[in-house]
């Protein structure tokens, strides 16, 4: 028997799709089109005069070596955020999967950071690591490590990576936990009976079976690091010291909302859009081949 539903009328499927399509049009395509339009314009702050400048905004961007350097900074930041975020969450999920007592409490606590707004996450970590009043920086200094993210670019990068990873870890954790729980226990038991230790069982059974989840999280985390982290940067480092933490999306936010330079900000978001589309396509074409959907 065929499972597929067949619509007899032509308009009913479109009607059923309409709400979702409307949302996508209004909240995704329209703003994206606006960004495309503004990226070829030069406007004053209040929009009282608008001039078509062609690709001038893009030309200016790519002539600026500091902007090009932002790509390097963004790559480091995104790899660190996605890499640390996914591996830590996997570790925690594996542990949570084995917890017998008070598992609900543990899991609830793990999910909490997700409810925190990015800017608040930035401020929280900033407080802990503030060179003069922060608790953690006090301990670090006691341990002989001179923490100062105000002047040391690596410290600043570490700070925003920690805040961004912490913020996203709950999301990753939830998906890994669900993935782990859907792995049939019988498979693992069979392997155990065959004499495979926990380490071996994890790498030969659990991890391959989690690969769809891992792949999904990789895409999501890269998109997260590229787009949603500007508030953390704004609260914690404002892109400094120098430009050590000026990632691409922070510059989009800064030029548009603080600098009121909408043309340049729009051009930068178009660049960002192209990068993320490319990355996602690459991930689906090459990385996905290694994924086992069983």
């Amino acid at each position, binding site marked *: 028997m065929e499972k597929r539903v067949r619509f007899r009328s032509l308009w009913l499927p479109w009607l059923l799709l309409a709400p979702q399509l409307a949302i996508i049009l209004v909240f995704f395509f329209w703003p994206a089109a606006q960004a495309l339009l503004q990226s070829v314009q*030069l*406007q*004053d*702050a*209040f*929009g*009282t*005069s608008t*001039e078509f400048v062609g690709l001038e905004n893009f030309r*200016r961007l790519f002539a600026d070596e*500091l902007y090009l350097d932002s790509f390097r900074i963004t790559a480091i930041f995104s790899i660190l955020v996605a890499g640390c975020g996914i591996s830590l969450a996997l570790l925690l999920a594996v542990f949570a999967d084995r917890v017998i007592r008070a598992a609900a409490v543990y899991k609830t606590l793990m999910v909490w950071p997700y409810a925190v707004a990015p800017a608040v996450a930035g401020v929280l970590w900033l407080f802990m690591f503030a060179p*003069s009043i922060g608790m953690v920086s006090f301990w670090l200094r006691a341990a002989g490590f001179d923490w100062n993210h*105000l*002047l*040391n*670019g690596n410290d600043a990068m570490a700070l925003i990576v920690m805040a961004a990873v912490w913020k996203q870890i709950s999301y990753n954790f939830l998906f890994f936990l669900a993935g782990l729980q859907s792995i049939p226990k019988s498979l693992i038991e069979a392997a155990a009976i065959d004499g495979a230790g926990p380490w071996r069982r994890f790498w030969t059974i659990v991890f391959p079976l989690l690969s769809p989840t891992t792949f999904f999280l990789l895409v999501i985390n890269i998109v997260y690091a590229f787009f949603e982290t500007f508030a953390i940067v704004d609260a914690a480092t*404002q*892109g*400094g*010291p*120098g*430009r050590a933490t000026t990632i691409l999306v922070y510059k989009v936010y*800064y*030029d548009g*909302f*603080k*600098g*009121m*330079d909408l*043309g*340049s900000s729009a051009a930068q978001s178009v660049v960002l859009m192209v990068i993320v589309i490319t990355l996602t396509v690459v991930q689906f074409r090459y990385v996905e081949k290694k994924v086992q959907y069983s």
Partner: protein
Amino acid sequence: MHRSLISAALASLLAIGVSSPAQAQTEIQWWHAMGGALGEWVNDLAKGFNASQTEYKVVPVYKGTYDESMTAAIAAFRAGNAPHILQVFEVGTATMMASKGAIKPVGEVLKEAGFKFDPSVYVPAVVGYYTAPNGQMLSLPFNSSTTVFHYNKDAFKAAGLDPDKPPQTWPEVALAAAKLKASGHKCPFTSSWISWTQLESFSAWHNTLFATQNNGFGGLGARLVFNSPLHQRHIENLANMSKQGLFVYKGRANAADATFPSGECAMMTGSAGLYSSIKRNAKFASGISTLPYYPDVQGAPQNTVIGGASLWVMAGKKPAEYKGVANFFTYISRPEVQAASHQRTGYLPITMAAYKLTDESGFYKKNPGTDVAVTQMIRKTTDKSRGIRLGNFVQIRTIVDEEMEQVWSGKKSPKDALDSAVKRGNEQLERFEKANKL
């Protein structure tokens, strides 16, 4: 059931009836960026005005920080519902001035409402900043401050320094800092607003240009020149102090502000507006002094430059509403209202009469140091010291922060950093000029 419904309906009808005289009032929206204690001050000003007459009602709305409220107003203007009055920080002045279609000059608003506008009653350095080359007053100075030198008298005593003799010059600051460090102070000297205090005010104080065309007063063609030998010398001096642990960098914008009242840093250059916070939070005796200078520079000390914000009137409103705005501005410019604001907040008085009134009341004698900011500002200004008014100034200040951080961390020489800041800043100025040409 029915009866209660009817009575509820009647009650609401009655409520409408009672509130209808209030509806006849012309409402004036005022968007501002004053939080906390300063927000209460803003609300009190509106309350005072609303109680003084019945025709108009000023409604103050807090819209977040300076840049947030400006962004909000720009978005509102683009959507066609801008407020009547908008508080804009000094850094946004050039942007507002260039947006001719978006604003209505305050001088025009006052004149159309039948008020006489006399520029001479205002403190020159304050009002000069907000006046167009043709003498038209564009916005009303509201909360104006300037850069001063704060120092911890108790720490001075502990270090064997005279608490009544604050350092007057930069060499003296370095000597005092060395003594403070020797006495165990971890942060002898810091500064908030690096660009504003160490380059902008520094330039005016030494009667040296920060940018060409009289620091941008002459037009949009101005370009930055703060990489002169004098500026280099000063940044080199600060870099050396930083290396020796005499100057400690505490972050961008006003991040350093918190380190002075807490006692962590013993000396700092920053806004005069910090006074109220120090008075409330500091557990030590503190003093205010004039900004340090280099004694061998001719013309120094001149005057310092303005910071803070002014009130702009947005375009496209009804004549009756503009009349209300004019009445409100006249009210808050009254000497007694001004003097009360000045004494309450530590911001500068905007009229000479308010300064005299405060002086006569003995306020400065009771609160020594509160007149430092005023006396630094009421001197006669020169073309080089009137103020700094540049487009894309927000970006320029961030560029300065970025480049100076490279100096404090030892990655760049002061000369390279200043040259690079000037070059990058000038690109911003060129872009602003292009976007705002007529």
